């Protein structure tokens, strides 16, 4: 068929372990593991054989309790962590034929700056809190090869305006801003090079309700206007329900369920997902 079936991002059999592994835990397959932890050698199997596809313009949700491996997965995709095994293909990079995890560090930097944008739960990880806000955006533009100061400033203004940061405050550092504003600066920075894929890791966690709503509305608006593909990680089912068409549920480093979001919420199959859904409200 046409491009309908062609994912923008394809992740296949991704695994990430912290620790050497031993004969007892045999690469995370053994029953002797306590959740995803090997009591003998202390290895944690954070992500175990994870596969999924992300399609152009879609919002894909990942839910799961703390420690289920959601953030590790996102870190692997953004090269914050090195994967133990697996591949990821991006359709807009080398025609989707190169495993991005096996590219040179120079190429990885290119992918990070041109193909991906990431927003962290903790703004300290995504921003330089002491630099000006517009400087934070310029940093990503420079990393992607931008050299024209005038053009970069214009782009920075445009982005900050887009995420509702008043232009008169663009020279202020994010440390002066509220949590919601910091998230919005992070989103502006992540969008600066028009990446086809945006990774959002618990972006509303820890914000008060009205600020949360404000950030969620912004994400929704961006998705509609820019038709950008997004992976949204959250333990908040409400956030997933509002934004994602399809959802994957993780537990102890494994994917236990995939489905349409309303199906996950109304007819969850796995014991854990049922428990999670019943915890809602």
């Amino acid at each position, binding site marked *: 068929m046409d491009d*309908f*079936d062609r994912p923008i991002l394809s992740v296949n059999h991704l695994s990430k372990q912290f620790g050497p592994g031993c004969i007892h835990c045999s690469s995370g397959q053994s029953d002797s593991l306590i959740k995803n932890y090997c009591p003998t050698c202390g290895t944690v199997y954070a992500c175990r054989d994870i596969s999924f596809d992300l399609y152009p313009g879609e919002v894909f949700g990942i839910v799961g309790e703390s420690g289920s491996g959601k953030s590790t997965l996102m870190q692997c995709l953004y090269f914050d962590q090195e994967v133990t095994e697996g591949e990821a293909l991006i359709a807009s990079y080398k025609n989707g034929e190169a495993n991005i995890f096996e590219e040179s560090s120079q190429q990885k930097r290119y992918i990070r700056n041109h193909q991906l944008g990431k927003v962290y739960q903790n703004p300290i990880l995504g921003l330089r809190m002491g630099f000006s806000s517009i400087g934070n955006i310029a940093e990503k533009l420079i990393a992607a090869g931008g050299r024209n100061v005038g053009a970069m400033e214009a782009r920075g203004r445009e982005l900050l305006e887009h995420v509702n940061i008043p232009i008169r405050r663009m020279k202020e550092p994010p440390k002066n801003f509220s949590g919601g504003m910091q998230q919005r600066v992070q989103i502006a920075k992540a969008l600066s090079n028009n990446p086809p894929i945006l990774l959002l890791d618990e972006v509303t966690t820890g914000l008060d309700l009205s600020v949360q709503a404000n950030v969620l509305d912004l994400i929704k608006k961006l998705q509609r206007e820019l038709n950008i593909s997004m992976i949204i990680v959250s333990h908040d089912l409400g956030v997933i329900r*509002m934004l994602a068409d399809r959802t994957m549920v993780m537990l102890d480093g494994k994917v236990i369920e995939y489905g349409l979001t*309303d*199906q996950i919420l109304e*007819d969850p*199959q796995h014991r854990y997902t049922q428990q999670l859904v019943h915890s809602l409200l």
Partner: protein
Amino acid sequence: MEPILSIHNLSKSFMLHNLDKHIKAIDRVDFELQEGEFVGITGKSGSGKSTILKSIYRTYVINEGSIWYISKRFGRMNLAEASEREMVYLRKHEIGYVSQFLNAMPRTTARELVEQAIVEMGNGEDFAKQEAEHMLAHFELDEYLWDSYPATFSGGEKLRLNIARAMVKHPRLLLLDEPTASLDNASKIKVRELLEQLMREGTTMLGIFHDLEFMKNLCHREYNMQNGIFSAI
């Protein structure tokens, strides 16, 4: 002619892990819908009527059986085995679902809600604006409500908006889950007019109605659901 929807041996039960219990909702349901047909389902609450609709819409994962649907885009396909990606497409373009509850996006106005449904199908913003206003006016939703949040609406207003949102897409197959449950007579007549209009346009519809009076002279055929067993009337 090949039916647009043919359901064979459809069974659905729910495994409730916390109670360690299996609950059977529908058992070996068989029926067909020809293109342009309007088929009604009656039955007591809890008899499994909604389960059929939700299985077609894939909100529920079925245990057994097949749901063959003829899609404009994909041709003949089994909805029970379609990819999620295909289902997302079908929901945006071909299969509509109206329930008695409005699952409105928070902080989205009535007008935006209808407009988004039109834009989702690949239409331009200007066209969407025009169509949305047309549809909201048709349902006699007071104009001052258009730009307010549906969370503040009355039950009847919410429902009318819900139907407007599904109808504006002119779906190929429309699933109606008690769409008139909480409406007053004037609103019911409005809904009926719209359903009749959709019928004239050739929309195939499968609907659950409590209101037998409403169903009379509207549906081509009726089925009754009793304890998960489905039978023609």
